[in-house]
Every structure is written in C-alpha cells, then in structure tokens.
C-alpha cells in the first residue's frame, strides 16, 4: 500500500493514473447528479413553508460543503508540500483552489437566489452567507499569491503558507461571524437537512452531495494533470508525451 502511494507521487505515474481515472469519475458524477436532481426536483414533495423554493438546497448545500472541503484538501496538500517537500502536493493545492473558489461562488449565488423568496432581498448578512463570502476572499488571496511569482515553486510555497494561516483562521472567522450575527440578531434560516425532513427530501440531498464530490474529484484530477504538465515541462517524460500526441 505504502509503495503504491509512493509510486503515485511520481508525476509520470500519477499523470497516467489520472488519465485513466478522471473520465470514469466524470461520467459517474454526471449520472449521480442527474439521479439526485430527479429525486430532488420531481420526487421530493414541496416544503410546507417554503413551497418549491426550498429545492435550491439541492445545489446550495452540496456546493457549500464542497467549498469547505476543497479548502481542507488545499490546506492539507499545502502542509504536505511544505513539510515533505512533495511537488505533487503543491500541484494539488494549486489545482483545487480555483475549483474551491467556484464552489464558494456557486454557494453564494444559490444562497442569495434562495434569499429572494425567503427574505425578499438577494443579500442578507446572514452568518453562513457572510462566512462563505469571507471564504471566497481567502480563496482569491491564495490564487492571487500563487500566481504572483515568476518562479512557480516560490509561488507554491508562499501560497502554501497562506493556506495554512487561513486554515488556522477559518474556525475563528466562522465563530466570530456567528457571534456577530447573534449580536445583531440578523435573520437566519437553517440550511441543510433538518430532523423533520422526510426521507424523500434528504435522500436526494445526499445523492447530490455524493455527485458533487465525484464531480470535484474528476475535475481536480483533470486540473491536476495540467498543473503537473506545467511543473514538469522540462522533464523527459513530458517531452515524450508531447511528441507522441
């Protein structure tokens, strides 16, 4: 097992591995998402308070979860890259960041679309939305720093430090925003599955979360392939690859 991991960390092996795995994950994610959408948009009953408006949670909740998950992946990979000086780990961080930012953006958009029927306005300084907004800022800072250096590796290592600082800060930010929100008694509604949700409502949600995870994995692998190619452009195996295709 360990040997296999070690082998996986070698860029050419990883590249071929991702080449094989990504399409499978991609198609699978499409199927799962379609199934989840069918369950969420057709099979699930309308909410007794929110009517059909609640159905946006089938996009909102998975993207909000993925936005956090992607940051964790990014920060973990950054730590691995800094501690064990693994080049592939830095490539993972750089590959995942724009995806995480996109999920965060999607969560913000769907959250505010949901806000219109709920609150009558597209934006309310709700604790969760505010936290997502700050998360988006953190992603943007990471991406900006990652691209600011001429030398790719310096950018990788600098932004890895920033990602770790961010990951220490996220719980503090999250908590402080919640505290701030209760202080000012902002409107809050609960996103996500509540205990009284019937199975026909929450099962599609879980399916959607699974689908988003698979989609994230597939796209990360694809983006990671590009990052690996850029970083290894001077090595022999990349030249061979370019010449044969």
């Amino acid at each position, binding site marked *: 097992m360990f040997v296999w991991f070690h082998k996986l960390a070698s860029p050419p092996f990883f590249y071929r591995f991702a080449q094989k795995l990504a399409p499978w994950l991609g198609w699978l994610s499409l199927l799962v998402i379609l199934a989840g959408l069918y369950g969420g948009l057709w099979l699930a009953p309308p909410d007794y308070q929110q009517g059909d408006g609640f159905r946006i949670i089938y996009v909102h909740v998975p993207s909000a979860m993925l936005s956090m998950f992607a940051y964790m992946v990014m920060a973990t990979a950054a730590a691995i890259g*800094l501690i064990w000086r693994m080049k592939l780990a830095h490539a993972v961080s750089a590959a995942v960041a724009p995806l995480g930012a996109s999920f965060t953006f999607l969560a913000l958009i769907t959250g505010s679309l949901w806000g219109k029927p709920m609150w009558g306005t597209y934006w309310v300084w709700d604790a969760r939305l505010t936290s997502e907004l*700050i998360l988006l*800022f*953190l992603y*943007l*800072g990471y991406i*900006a*720093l990652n691209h*600011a*250096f001429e*030398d790719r590796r*310096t950018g990788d*290592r*600098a932004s890895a*430090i*920033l990602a*770790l*600082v*961010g990951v*220490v*800060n996220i719980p*503090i*930010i999250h*908590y*402080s*925003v919640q*505290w*701030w929100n209760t*202080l000012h008694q902002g409107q809050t509604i609960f996103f996500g599955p509540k205990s009284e949700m019937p199975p026909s409502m929450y099962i599609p949600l879980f399916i959607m979360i699974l689908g988003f995870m698979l989609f994230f994995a597939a796209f990360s692998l694809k983006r990671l392939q590009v990052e690996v190619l850029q970083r290894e452009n001077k090595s022999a195996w990349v030249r061979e690859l370019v010449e044969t295709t």
Partner: protein
Amino acid sequence: MRYRAIIGRDLRLAYRRRGELATPVIFFVIVTALFPLALNPDPALLRTLAPGVIWVAALLAVLIGQDRLFKTDYEDGSLELMLLSPISLEWIVLLRVFTHWLVTGLPLVILSLLLAMMLDYPMHAIGILVMSLLLGTPILSFLGAIGASLTVGLRRGFMLLPILVLPLTIPVLIFGAAAAGRAALGDHSAAPLYFLGAMLMLTVTLSPFAIAGGLRVSLES
C-alpha cells in the same frame, strides 16, 4: 543584550525616519475624518458609527504601515543577514514586529482618543475603546507581517498585501468594534475583550513561524 541590540536598531532607524512613521497616523486621521463628510455630521449618528469607523480606519492604517516592515531590509540585504544568523528567525521576527507595533500601532491607539472625541464617542467608554485597540492592533501588526513576509520580494506586493491579509483580520474587527460599541451603549464588553486577548496570545505564538517561513520562501530565489 543581543535582543536589545535588535530592538534598538529598529527604534533608532524609526527615529531617523520619523517622517515615514507619520504616514499611517495621518492616514488614520484622514480616513476617520472622511466619514462625517460622507455621511452626516449629526452627533447621534456619529456616536453609533464611531466604534466601527475608528476600528476600520485603524485596521487599514496598520496594514498600510506593515508593507514597509521588511521592504528596506530586503532591498539593502540586511534581511539576508537575519536569515543567516544563528539566532532563530522566529525570535528576530517576533521582536521586530513588536518594535514596529510600538512605533506604528501605539501612536494610533493614543490618537484614537482624539478621534473618539471628534466623533462624539461617550467618554465613559473610552477606556474600553483604548483597551480593545491595545489588544487588537498588535494582532493586526502580526497578521500584516505575514502578508509583508510573503510579498516582500514582489514589486507590486503592496497591492497584494491587503487582499491576503484583510480577510484574516475580520475576527479582530468584529470583536474590537463590538467591544467599543457595547461599551458605548453601557453594555458589558468583557466577552469581546477576552476574545481579543485570546486571539492576541494565539497570534503572538503562531504567527512568527508563518512570518519566518514567508521570509525564507521570499528570499529563496
């Protein structure tokens, strides 16, 4: 002895370039003065806005001062000497950020008294405002130093620094402004002050590692 020499160096340099030190302070005053002009000089309105305005202005002023923290040392090669010193870089950085706060952050705290008066902030609460700034601005200095260490090698680092650091400063802003705001209304403000204190401890302990790491990376190429 050694540590005294390191602190003494920065104090001496700061004293010889007094003009540069005034920049964040002037910025602080000007930004604060913009709010009554943009909104309405009604004392009742200003009183409710005062904690937030002073805190936002202080936050921006600290960050502005932080860009120069390592820049001149990077340009004249003294930063390399600090990295090559057998004294741990984390210690050096801790001392230097603290010294920098003494000459840039502390004047802001003192000046906030004046600005609080101009914004009709209630006098009975002024102790809490100063306390919140005393606990909060060092955190901002350390967070700003993280950004400064990561961008010191970049030509347009001063543009990038606020983008990197501002999201990280949000908890400080929330608790700092809340402490000052609650005190103005006569409420208890111990809770946010405790939070600020805890965050200060955390920042002083952990951020020197991030700053030192950032400097090492920045000087690598």
